[in-house]
């Protein structure tokens, strides 16, 4: 899997990431479809954007630090303007 070796399609981590990016990082519907394709570079960019904003290492992967932060409670206002 191009995002992270340990994460597969339909995995709860993937669902959380998709929801998180959609809700707080303006992931659009056409970009969501990319989760189902092999070329995930726009999603990797979104993950990097999120990691940069939240002060994480910009790996573009759903690593443990990123997943940990995504599970934390937070403000519902998106981090990027819509």
């Amino acid at each position, binding site marked *: 899997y191009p995002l992270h070796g340990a994460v597969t399609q339909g995995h709860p981590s993937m669902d959380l990431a998709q929801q998180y990016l959609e809700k707080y990082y303006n992931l659009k519907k056409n970009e969501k479809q990319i989760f189902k394709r092999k070329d995930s570079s726009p999603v990797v960019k979104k993950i990097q954007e999120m990691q940069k*904003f939240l002060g994480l290492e910009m790996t573009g992967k759903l690593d443990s630090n990123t997943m940990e932060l995504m599970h*934390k409670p*937070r*403000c*519902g206002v998106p*981090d990027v303007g819509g």
Partner: protein
Amino acid sequence: FSTFPGSPKWRKSHITYRIVNYTPDLPRQSVDSAIEKALKIWEEVTPLTFSRIFEGEADIMISFAVGEHGDFYPFDGPGQSLAHAYPPGPGFYGDVHFDDDEKWTLGPSGTNLFLVAAHELGHSLGLFHSNNKESLMYPVYRFSTSPANFHLSHDDIEGIQSLYAPSPS
């Protein structure tokens, strides 16, 4: 720090607020006091003053709600999204909504109402999220300091003063 697109802000220095309803998690007096304290931290560093009204439309309408609650941003049950608020402006702008599926507390357990209120009121005054982890306006909740000793970070103060100037005192 950052501000909302177009940097909306209140064009007056006296702002009204109204607590529309209460969470069952805390006594009403505790909610009133947490909101008052949260407003005070912004009042101390700007020329802004706040007064409470009990009926009619206030600039900042504060409410507790669960799930879908009349805007396009339904709450999501316990965890993750704790609250949201709108930037300054008429109508629903400036308003603060707390997710009442959270366990609201005044201590380190559950979700501290004062800290979340202070963050959300930052949005009501025009601050957007900060990527500075020490800032109150960082989007992820953390209970790192006793609310009794709470201080805004330099980032928060610079941000709010970029919109409203420093406190005259």
